[in-house]
């Protein structure tokens, strides 16, 4: 095992331990105390898990998009494998983000689903991933599948910003950090977060991104082997 894989394991364990165990107090005096965010209290801890997972979903989609473009330029099937594997991981992270967010919403907003702009956005991302894999399974020829799914990913990629950036701004939302929220009255990420929370948050962000890279590497190696054995089979027969 390479050093960075052991590193990400220790890193994420430390982040989880800190995120779950540091006390949330009204007036923090020590470096290990998080301040209370009115209206969120203990539920604020979700930010260390939910937001990095949602972030990884977007990263995975961008990686899939990038490799789709790369496939169209080089016609190299390995780029297509990277694209579809990244989309698969993105789907996994999108489901995780949706489920964690939904459970949190049950306790903060009173119901599992409210069609808040952010919830609508992740729903659309799930739909795009679903449509992407429906398209892939409907085409047999490998080159054609690679080409068409890359084109679809790009078309979805150019229309998705309409959600991520425009919709939350024309609708007021319930989500912390959106325009309807009193606390974070500003654009999405300008949270008034305490420095120590911010540090743990970014540590979690980095940890999840590296975890994604690790999972990506495993899947890429698997599909490289599959490609290799498929070619070997066809040469024998």
């Amino acid at each position, binding site marked *: 095992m390479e050093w960075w894989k052991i590193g990400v394991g220790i890193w994420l364990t430390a982040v989880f331990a800190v995120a779950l165990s540091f006390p949330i107090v009204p007036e923090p005096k020590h470096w290990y105390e998080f301040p209370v965010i009115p209206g969120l209290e203990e539920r604020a801890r979700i930010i260390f898990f939910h937001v990095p997972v949602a972030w990884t979903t977007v990263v995975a989609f961008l990686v899939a998009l990038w490799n789709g473009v790369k496939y*169209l330029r080089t016609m190299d099937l390995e780029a297509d494998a990277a694209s579809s594997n990244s989309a698969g991981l993105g789907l996994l992270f999108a489901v995780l983000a949706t489920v964690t967010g939904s459970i949190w919403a049950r306790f903060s907003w009173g119901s599992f689903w409210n069609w808040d702009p952010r919830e609508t956005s992740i729903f*659309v991302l799930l*739909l*795009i991933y*679903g*449509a992407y894999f*429906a*398209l892939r399974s*409907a*085409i*047999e020829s490998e080159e*054609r599948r690679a*080409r*068409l799914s*890359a*084109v*679809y990913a*790009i*078309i*979805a990629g*150019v*229309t998705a910003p*309409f*959600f991520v950036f*425009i*919709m939350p701004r*024309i609708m007021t939302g319930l989500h912390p950090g959106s325009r309807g929220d009193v606390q974070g009255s500003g654009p999405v990420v300008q949270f008034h977060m305490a420095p120590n929370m911010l540090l743990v948050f970014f540590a979690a962000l980095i940890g999840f991104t590296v975890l994604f890279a690790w999972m990506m590497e495993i899947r890429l190696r698997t599909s490289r082997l599959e490609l290799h054995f498929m070619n070997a089979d066809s040469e024998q027969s």
Partner: protein
Amino acid sequence: MAGDSKFNFAEWLRSATGVFWKDFRSELRTRYALNALVMFVVTTLSIVLFSMTEENVAVDVLAGILWVVIFFSAMSGLSRTFVNEEERGTVMTLHLLASPSAIFFGKLFVNLALVFFLNTLVVVLYLLLINGFAIQSYGIFVLTLLLGSTGLASAATIIAAIIAKANTKGTLYPVLSFPILLPLLLTVMNGTKLATGPASLSDAAVEFRILISYSVVVTAASYLLFEYVWKD
């Protein structure tokens, strides 16, 4: 494509309009898509009517249902442009006769014509048949319809080109189109809601801006990517 040094705009325009008139004429001869579309619209509207007899439905809901009818009618007819070529085996001939971008824009204009026809039909019937759906700001309504139809046709054309190459064409079309069209649908529904109340044209400026940029972005991306879909 446009980057070609020997690009001849007159030649390009001739083949694009050629593709458009070919489809237009064959449609007038068979009326395959038109008949199906008209029947689809009538059926859908009568289901809506039957489900709302003696009910007072809020005008905001009616504005949404209008676009539900338009979306599914479009999904039933717009894929024909490319699926037809695959089924009749005329793809190779088109490959020989016209450049990919000329074919794309020819097909785009066919779909635009079809969507404008379809939406006019739906809206006229909807206004006549559904009580309680009254428009107060016609400016917003007409502009929303025009811009919404343009965006609908541009997204539907590239998705039609994609699914024409796949195995399960019919079911795949709405599945692939919906996530792409959702930003458009949400915006036109907003615009239509605004049009049912007293609002001036500038109130819907945000909607118009989104719709225009949507059409431009999708058409530009489709133009750049169409070659990869079209060439086997």
